[in-house]
């Protein structure tokens, strides 16, 4: 059985959790799991990868060209590595994985399989289409399967317990097509949206960004992350990376609390696999109530502070 290459997502120092979900997906396919870490000064990330349960080998490409993991530079490295005998290349379906995987696939002249939610067999996968309103089972006969993994559909692999070797590898370095200029990362003390156990999201019903502290207070009581609908983001209430939905982030926490969100299909696509859904909306006909386990028809400006107090 051919080996599986998982492309690690990391910030050179630490491994991002999406890598752990991809390792779990790889484990359900079968074959040795190797993790490729491309970065600059990324020894720590490589060591973290070597401890992940189920990982047989870590390949570390340490080069200043890979510092920001630009796809123009990293894709040729992944392709050259994959050609060394891998049947699958996996990455998390995150903004990094989605940017990279199709570039790798096209260079290998194979299809890419986006956002899988299930592994049927080594060449057959389930993936949502039409904003999750249908699930397609697709089969690839290509020599290499290039796949991104929906993180909410696979458990995270244990971060400890493994003892893989770390081997240095090298690639062609900078392709000279792109240059990293800057990053503006949203700072937050709260858990990361896609990894949080509880998510509290606000929609247009919040009326303005000034009202979001209401939700933040509730989130802090619950140790929750704060999310939003597209309408709330478009209106500038909160930063873009708060958006939950078909074209934003996919979340599946234990508890999702939707506040002043109507429940458009594009929003539901991003949260309807949450374990328990609570909706607070003053319109009893709002479609969000069709997916909510517990619906509270109320004015959010009264209900949210009350809920916060009651916890």
């Amino acid at each position, binding site marked *: 059985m051919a080996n599986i290459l998982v492309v690690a997502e990391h910030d050179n120092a630490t491994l991002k959790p999406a890598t752990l979900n991809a390792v779990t997906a790889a484990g359900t396919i079968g074959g040795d799991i190797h993790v490729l870490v491309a970065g600059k000064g990324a020894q720590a990330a490589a060591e973290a990868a070597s401890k992940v349960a189920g990982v047989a080998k870590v390949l570390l490409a340490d080069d200043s060209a890979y510092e920001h993991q630009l796809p123009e530079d990293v894709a040729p490295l992944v392709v050259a590595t994959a050609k060394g005998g891998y049947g699958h290349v996996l990455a998390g379906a995150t903004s990094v994985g989605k940017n990279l995987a199709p570039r790798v696939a096209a260079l290998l002249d194979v299809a890419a399989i986006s956002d899988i939610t299930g592994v049927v067999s080594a060449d057959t996968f389930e993936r949502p*289409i*039409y904003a999750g*309103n249908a699930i397609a089972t697709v089969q*690839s006969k290509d020599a290499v399967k290039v796949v991104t993994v929906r993180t909410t559909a696979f458990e995270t692999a244990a971060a400890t317990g493994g003892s893989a070797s770390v081997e240095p590898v090298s690639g062609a370095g900078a392709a000279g097509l792109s240059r990293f200029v800057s*990053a503006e990362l949203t700072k937050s003390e709260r858990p990361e949206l896609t990894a949080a156990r509880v998510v509290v999201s606000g929609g247009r019903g919040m009326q303005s960004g000034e009202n979001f502290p209401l939700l933040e207070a509730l989130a802090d009581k619950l140790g929750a992350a704060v999310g939003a609908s597209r309408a709330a983001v*478009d209106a500038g209430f909160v930063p873009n990376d708060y958006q939950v939905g078909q074209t934003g982030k996919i979340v599946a926490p234990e*508890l999702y609390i939707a506040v002043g969100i109507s429940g458009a299909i594009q929003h539901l696509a991003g949260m309807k696999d949450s374990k328990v859904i609570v909706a607070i909306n003053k319109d009893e006909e709002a479609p969000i109530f069709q997916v909510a386990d517990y619906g*509270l028809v109320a004015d959010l400006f009264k209900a949210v502070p009350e809920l916060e107090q009651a916890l």
Partner: protein
Amino acid sequence: MRILVPVKRVVDYNVKIRVKADGSGVETANVKMSMNPFDEIAVEEAVRLKEAGKASEIVAVSVGPAQAQETLRTALAMGADRAILVQTDAETQPLAVAKVLKALVEKEGPQLVILGKQAIDDDCNQTGQMLAALLGWGQGTFASKVVPGEGSVAVTREIDGGLETVDLTLPAIVTADLRLNEPRYASLPNIMKAKKKPLETVTPDSLGVDVAPRLTTLTVVEPARRKAGVKVADVATLVDKLKTEARVI
């Protein structure tokens, strides 16, 4: 510079889709079709670049059935100068579309190709990245800002943790995210004018591209439905249910 904008004809985003009973796919007969929303944003961005004097000509392209002409007419009404339909009744998968687009890029010589980040039917989010790979160009995906400069373009991208800006050597690929702009509605006079703009039809064969799908869809089914929930009378009941019934707090 010339800008190429690929636009896909998809089931309108307001339609509640139906999975066919035989599990072969999603019902598309007699369903409202529209331009993929992200492609409207891509067209709008190209038109704004032209209005700002940064682009000279906008060519809209669609790969699909004869009816995709309507989608191209919409792009022309929004401000594209001419259109190319690459006509095929085959299912158009991203790798095949990228190969068709590469052939057209080689013919048309654009400096910038602006695609949507994702088609809302297949939800693939692949074509732009694949085209960039095939051409050996840089890619500014999930763009919320595009600023062309001398020989390069600065693209601000929506990433999971916030925003990232990259500078790409031209020619380059951009894929549009939701907040790049708000697309205009085509005015009636522009819709009339669009009818006279050139729309050329070619075939994948004439471009020397094999569009046969690589992925076989075995089945399409409806997702598992959630169990119907309950309405609670007040906050106290809600807290109680979350504690004792759902046990999530």
